[in-house]
């Protein structure tokens, strides 16, 4: 029940779409396997905990099959989308920012982790002035942190910088 028009001028196997379809198929298989692993108590034999998961995994399997079929027959993307190469370097910068953020937010606190994330993402979008971005990121993160901590009383991850500020400016209010 494909709604794709076969006339995109492309008839070979579309590689990107093929990988996507295979990924989706892999997910469908994992979902099906995990559904089989759910133990069913005979008490709930009527509509037990596996009925809807089973429908879901079969649905995913069928749809992955349809995607796979479409990918082998030229894929579904329009020509201009296919020919634009994604900027790999930019993607790596964003990825680096995210990984650094995860690694630092626990031990070093929200502000430092945010500065790293901010600078890397700005770099990914072509900003060259990393020092300036780090400064903007610092102001941004501190305002957000204090806004949440003081106005809404939600702690979003204190660390070195946050605790120093607390003890210098908000010493009266205690910790």
């Amino acid at each position, binding site marked *: 029940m494909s709604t794709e028009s076969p006339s995109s001028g492309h008839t070979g196997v579309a590689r990107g779409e093929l990988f996507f379809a295979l990924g989706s198929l892999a997910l469908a298989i994992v979902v099906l396997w995990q559904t089989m692993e759910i133990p069913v108590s005979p008490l709930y034999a009527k509509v037990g*905990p596996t009925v809807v*998961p089973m429908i879901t995994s079969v649905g995913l399997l069928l749809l992955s099959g349809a995607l796979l079929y479409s990918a082998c027959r030229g894929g579904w*993307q329009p020509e201009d989308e296919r020919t634009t190469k994604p900027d790999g370097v930019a993607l790596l910068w964003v990825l680096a*920012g995210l990984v650094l953020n995860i690694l630092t937010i626990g031990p070093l606190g929200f502000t430092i982790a945010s500065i790293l994330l*901010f600078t890397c993402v700005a770099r990914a*979008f072509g900003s060259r002035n990393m020092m300036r971005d780090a400064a903007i990121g610092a102001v941004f993160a501190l305002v957000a942190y204090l806004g949440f901590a003081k106005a809404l009383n939600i702690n979003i991850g204190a660390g070195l910088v946050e605790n120093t500020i607390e003890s210098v400016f908000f010493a009266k209010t205690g910790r």
Partner: protein
Amino acid sequence: MEGFHSLLNGFAIALTPINLMWCLVGTTLGTAIGVLPGLGPALTIALLLPITFKVEPTAAFILFAGIYYGAMYGGSTTSILLNTPGESASIVTSMEGNKMARNGRAGAALATAAIGSFVAGTLGTLGLAFLAPIVVDWALKFGPADYFSLMLLAFVTVSAVLGSSAIRGLAALFFGIWLGLIGIDLQTGQARFTFGLQELLDGINVIVVAVGLFAVGETFYMASRAHTGEDEITPLKGSLMMTKTEWKRSIGPWLRGTLFGFPIGAMPAGGAEIPTFLSYYTERKLSKYPEEFGTVGAIEGVAGPEAANNASAAGVLVPMLTLGLPTSATSAIMLSAFQSYGINPGPLLLTSQANLVWGLIASLFIGNVMLLVLNLPLIGLWVKMLKIPAPQLYAGILVFATIGTYGITQSPIDLVMLYLIGGVGYFMRRYDFPTAPVIIGMILGPLAEQNFRQAMTISAGDWTVFFTRPLSLTILILAALALMGPKLYSLATRKTA
């Protein structure tokens, strides 16, 4: 007039200083995120969900609804001046609106969009106030089987009918349903799909999924093609006052746009794209100046779709508030806010939470007035916001995304999950998969399962219950038609051609 009385009572609630303040914050924030490319109402409300732990429900929903309406207004500014539609509902506005701006008539385009949004938003909210009690009376007769069928219909329309491809829409939907199934099954206490991880027992937080798809995934996607083209802001030229002819040419499209937008938005199908396109093609047919369409920009082509867009936003609230049935990503996230308060949206909401619902509806009227002021006299402010450079904008969005997720639980696992879903979001965007069905499937999936089980328990395990109840059968036939209809239609026309 019981409805009228309830509405007056709602105004008494909405007009308290504190609720007026929430309404102003919501509409201002909504306009801002509507103007900024890369931020939408669904993402913003998801990021603000943690305030449901601190703020009372009425205030929170006034804030959320303000954001929802505000984003509709702000989105038109971006599509007129930047030709980058902030969301799918304003694609049509950018077609004519940007042409008008390029020909020095940006002022008139912005004015007709804002006033049209006001007219349609106000009429749509009136429609909501009158229609909601009627739908509730009718919905009280619904049994679990009928609800389940109604949810199936919503699944089909949001994923298979509204997008560009039924297969990709349904794949996104099933992915969302699976995400919603993760965690402990409330009825049997059985853990499902937790892969032995303790953190997954409570299920995946909808904030993590919404922010991952809409913020992280979107940032990856925009970064991957940041260098392919530069957007330029068309300078704001032309008076914001419309001339007499412009008024005359706008009024018809505003009203017709409302008539398209509200009913289509109120149907369990939902969606703002279809009414905007319908309105656009109608206006192009009816216009006395068809030569202006696609060339210098026709004001009718901005007035109609903008009105349709806002009226459908009001319409979407009808099934959300009366049936608990979300038909857009934004209303799905609002539904999860109800759940986080322990409130069950459904036909009983109007009586059990009368103050909340009528206060919310009244504040929508007030919000519309605020938005008209925010978007006409103060338009210069928002044009300045458009000048925020992309690197700092997206960097800021990601920092906020981290706050929204790490801030709630302080668990690095949530951050890892956020970024993983962000990666999925990137590939979905790259390969043209819609992301809204993921959110709708995730929220509505477990509710559908619950109604399915109740229906099966009542019928003592008889599967035919969905086909023997007339209401349920009718809805199922509609769903089948919605799924198969376009395909059959194209087959039929191909044969005759």
